């Protein structure tokens, strides 16, 4: 493991050099929130943010991905749209990198999704520790407060400097090309440990059980009255899933030019919370109520994704808690309550 350090002023100059030569995406203040967006100048980058509206996964699984173009003149002519613009993302928080690892398991598992793979291969990741979590986060109790392997560079804000952990060859190359960083020693690494340790006490929400036990409490909680209680308030608006960094479901649709000569097939984010998500052509809806859909979402996050792809579908970012208009989307509330109900019978 290689550690470097760089002053914040120097880092900003480095970001400017990256922007000169690359597509660089970073966190920008977008009142009242923050959002990942293309950077045009280094001073737009805001690394002391608490949460972004959407996770940076939108660069790997965009809300709308063209799958193919075609002509309608009787013959199928399918043009490949697989490809990606190389770039650098700056400012990914640990929980969002955990979520990206789940996307890797989904889209680079048995079947390789060429669209996802192309983006994943050419977009570098520079992350940063989340030392000041927002009030909705419960990442500490989900085990996602610190980054997993898989970043190129990782920053820790140590005051007037950033400590940098180099995570890959691509990261090394970025350092060589753009960063005037000096070697960091044991003191700085110890300091990072202390900062991380201290950040854990700042989380306001926490899961009362080990995350590994979530599937177990779900196993006993299918018939809990909680589902009806929460589900009957649901607007089926899908906000909880749109902001979720591990939501991967999509619809496949066609669109044509107005002249009806050519068109495009694309996939677009969809939501299991929408009322028609499980409806078949004959009109039968296999998840007809808000209760059915809310329960499915929380089982998927807490059990099914773990079974199928080896990782929990909740990283504790808290975005869904904040996004829900009627305060029913919280996974930490649901899992804690089911755990309590399981204990008390």
């Amino acid at each position, binding site marked *: 493991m290689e550690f470097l350090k760089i002053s914040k002023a120097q880092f900003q100059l480095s970001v400017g050099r990256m922007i000169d030569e690359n597509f660089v995406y970073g966190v920008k203040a977008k009142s009242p929130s923050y959002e990942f967006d293309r950077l045009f100048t280094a001073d737009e980058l805001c690394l002391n943010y608490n949460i972004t509206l959407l996770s940076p996964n939108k660069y790997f699984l965009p809300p709308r991905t063209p799958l193919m173009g075609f*002509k309608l003149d009787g013959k199928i002519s399918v043009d*490949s749209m697989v490809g990606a613009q190389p770039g650098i993302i700056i400012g990914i928080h640990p929980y969002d990198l955990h979520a990206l690892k789940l996307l890797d398991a989904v889209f680079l598992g048995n079947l390789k999704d060429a669209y996802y793979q192309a983006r994943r291969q050419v977009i570098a990741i520079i992350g940063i520790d989340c030392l000041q979590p927002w009030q909705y986060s419960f990442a500490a109790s989900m085990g996602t407060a610190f980054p997993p392997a898989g970043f190129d560079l990782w920053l820790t804000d140590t005051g007037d400097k950033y400590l940098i952990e180099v995570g890959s060859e691509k990261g090394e190359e970025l350092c060589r090309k753009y960063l005037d960083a000096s070697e960091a020693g044991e003191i700085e690494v110890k300091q990072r440990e202390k900062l991380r340790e201290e950040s854990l006490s700042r989380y306001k929400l926490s899961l009362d059980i080990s995350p590994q036990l979530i599937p177990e409490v779900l196993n006993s909680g299918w018939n809990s009255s909680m589902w009806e209680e929460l589900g009957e308030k649901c607007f089926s608006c899908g906000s909880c899933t749109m902001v979720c960094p591990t939501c991967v479901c999509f619809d496949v649709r066609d669109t044509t030019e107005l002249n009806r000569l050519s068109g495009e097939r694309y996939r677009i984010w969809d939501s299991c919370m929408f009322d028609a998500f499980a409806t078949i052509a004959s009109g039968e809806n*296999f998840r007809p109520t808000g209760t059915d859909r809310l329960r499915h979402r929380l089982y998927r996050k807490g059990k099914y994704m773990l079974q199928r792809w080896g990782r929990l579908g909740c990283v504790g970012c808290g975005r869904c808690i904040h996004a829900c208009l009627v305060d029913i989307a919280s996974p930490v509330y649901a899992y804690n309550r089911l755990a309590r109900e399981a204990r008390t019978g």
Partner: protein
Amino acid sequence: MINKSNSESLYFPRPTKLIDVTALSEREILFRLRLEDGNALYHIPGQFVEVSILGTGEAPISIASSPTQGDAFELAIRAVGNVTQALHRLQPGDTIGIRGPFGNGFPVSELKDRDLLFIAGGIGFFPLRSMIQYVLDMRPLFGKIILLYGCRQPAEQLFHQELKEWRERDDVLIMDTVDRCPPETEWEGNVGVITTLFPGINILPARTTALVAGPPVMYRYVVAECLKKGIAKERIILSLERRMKCGIGLCGHCQIDNAYVCLDGPVFNYAKLEQLKEVEL
């Protein structure tokens, strides 16, 4: 500086020619198709394909013919959505797109030497037809064959010619029924829902596997009758309809609990289905 990946997209349909279009009724058409690259589809009875009309979209359709019938394959399609309505406007010689085959299909090797009880409700006949054709083409490999075929009314019974040919064979028993028979309609068979055929069948439960496809509402009652006859839960095999949009286990639309119908189904045995909480049978 766009990075082009060479790996083929899982979403690209294969050009497929309509070689025959036969109306089955006012609402259903039988399409005979052949892949333009000359290959067979290499499917297993009970699998499905994504049918693609560029500019309109894709729809999951079960394959209605057996791979033993040659390189061409058949899809029987009721016009209910945008894609299937667009399909109904096509002519022989037109080209559509096909992805697949997808899904597990019927457990063909497990069914060898078994007595088979096919139970088809309405257009549930379409996916079962692929297996029935297979069984009849490979007849010595299987035991006794019974087909129960129920429709709402006589006009909805399809594939008359084929049924007639099967009826003439002495190695398969066909029993059909309609829920109701409007006055002045010609009908010689049973009248009543499909479960009313059960008392009339003679099976050896230990030797018998039931294969079921029909409207969702039918399953509960048919499974109950099969269990009453003494057929083991593992030997009651059902083909489910869900909204498979991608066919490759990604889009999420066809999920039942943790099962992806497009990968783990569409064929499930009842012992497995019973464990899925979202299935109420």
